[in-house]
């Protein structure tokens, strides 16, 4: 009796979570995959016929491939900028004393507390043709620059919201670092910069890599920011899927794009994770 309960307890504990996962992630995903193989006709709608035509259409059309490439490029760029800003930021943060550390940590996490729509509109007000940034540029004697509805605007806003996802893993890695290790490097004749590069950086690289993974994944699937700051013409993968569903009403094609983006994202992140794990095994065991 007791042994029977012992074996059923884990299942009971896992059950609710597993059901949720099944109903809210796996099921819609399976339905989307099935949908992507349905034929579609503009006059009659979705037909109950198996076809690979959507996949063929998406993968052979430069329009779609261009959007995929832009998605990849902007996500990678956002990740790179986040790493370049976030890692030093986390280092400075970890060297701060309370209460300043708590204050600045709140400032960094701040963007996450504001709705993505409000944040995006905030940026569009700043970056618009009569916005604060352009006013400043004109005051300095530069001509008005077109910022809104450009890739630049998308990357700026993405970096703004993604930064905490980079800072926090790096900061966590720095917390585990013995401050004496850096002092040891100095005592052996290393300059501040060399100590950072040779001693601190290798130990937080794991935090940076996992941070990049989160930032890349979220950027590549971002919807609101490219939708509001990229405008109607500058599409990214998520906005493209939305348009196929809501404007073209071509659900199977939308589903196809979604699945391709998911597969590509998964592939990139798994490959990246492999790199992380081999590195981790080498450096930290």
């Amino acid at each position: 009796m007791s042994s029977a309960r012992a074996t059923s307890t884990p299942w009971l504990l896992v059950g609710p979570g597993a059901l949720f996962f099944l109903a809210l992630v796996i099921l819609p995903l399976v339905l989307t995959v099935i949908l992507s193989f349905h034929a579609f006709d503009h006059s009659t709608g979705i037909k109950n016929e198996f076809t690979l035509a959507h996949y063929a259409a998406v993968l052979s059309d430069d329009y779609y491939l261009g959007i995929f490439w832009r998605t990849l490029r902007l996500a990678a760029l956002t990740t790179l900028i986040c790493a370049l800003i976030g890692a030093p930021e986390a280092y400075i943060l970890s060297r701060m004393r309370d209460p300043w550390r708590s204050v600045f940590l709140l400032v960094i996490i701040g963007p996450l507390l504001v709705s993505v729509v409000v944040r995006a509109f905030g940026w569009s007000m700043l970056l618009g043709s009569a916005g604060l940034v352009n006013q400043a540029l004109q005051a300095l004697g530069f001509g008005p620059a077109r910022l809104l509805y450009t890739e630049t605007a998308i990357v700026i806003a993405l970096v703004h919201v993604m930064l905490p996802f980079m800072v926090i893993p790096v900061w966590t890695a720095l917390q585990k670092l013995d401050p004496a290790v850096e002092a040891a490097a100095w005592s052996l004749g290393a300059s501040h910069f060399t100590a950072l590069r040779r001693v601190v950086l290798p130990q937080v690289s794991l935090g940076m890599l996992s941070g990049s993974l989160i930032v890349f994944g979220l950027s590549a699937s971002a919807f609101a920011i490219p939708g509001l700051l990229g405008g109607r013409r500058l599409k990214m993968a998520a906005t493209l899927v939305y348009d196929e569903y809501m404007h073209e009403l071509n659900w199977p094609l939308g589903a196809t794009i979604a699945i391709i983006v998911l597969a590509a994202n998964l592939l990139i992140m798994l490959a990246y994770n492999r790199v992380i794990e081999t590195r981790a095994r080498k450096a930290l065991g």
Partner: protein
Amino acid sequence: MGFLTLEKLSKIYGDLAAVQDVDLAVDKGEFVSLLGPSGCGKTTTLQMIAGLVEPSAGTIRLDGRDITRQKPNHRGLGIVFQSYALFPHMTVAQNVSFGLEMRKVGKAERDERVKTMLGLVHLARFAERYPRQLSGGQRQRVAIARALVIQPPVLLLDEPLSNLDAKLREEMQFELRRIQQSVGTTTIMVTHDQAEALSISDRVVVMEQGRMTQIDAPYRLYESPATPFISSFVGKMNRLEGVWGKGAAEVAGVTLPTEAVGFTEGQAIALSIRPEKLALRPQGQGRLDGTILHRFFLGSYWLFTVATPAGAFSVSVPNDGDEPARQGAAVSLDWAPASLRVEALAVRGAAA
């Protein structure tokens, strides 16, 4: 003029003086320990020498050169940190080689020197291991090798043995001394463990509340401690308070024989004697009768607490193989009068 000298060195945090007006001259090749309880300023002093903490005032000179404001990476001192601070992502050989790389030593010479140094600390077989694959004592030796391979003029050790277990600590302290003597590097060690400081140092500096209160050879420190604090911090000490009466020391009306002279009649005095300077005799054959209150067996010796009319005394007796007197037994204490120290008792408040 010492090889490394500290002159009026101070570190003030707000209105707290962590280290105050410290003067010290260390000779070349000397092993000096900074001994004191936590918060006495010994680690701050070491960090100022290392360049990791900036002094508020005073001067640090190395070989006649003023290094007070020099950056730690230009001082060239070897430091062994309490946590060892090994580079976890580098192998033992890479850890030891790091300082030589920073000095732009060629690959061939570097390998050679790393090999020699690892041989000296008996770690030649572990060159390709990572620090996490080593035991505490091995990590410690890597830290020493890493600090010594750059041939520093001064080696600084910050509580180097405090993270090791008791048995290993004892082995490592002699090992440390062996390595230091074979290399001949001037060494300053910070420790709160008096046994460690006494056993391996040429000189011991005792620090109390930011000041150096005694700088002496270990046995002199032990035999003639300069302050009551040192007498109880370094080794065990029986301390009694009494008065000087009729040319002898009196405690609670009992006269205790000493060789001390020169106190005025009725003056308050403090008496102190080490437990091992006391001997147990059968009742009536010693200088002070008492009964055994407690008895502890500590392997190489027995420790007794003996109640006497003058107060309780700790007495340690070497273990000669036979069982000594039991708890409750009537005994008598005996000592050489010269070993009972007498000092004038500072009246509280009068000094301040």
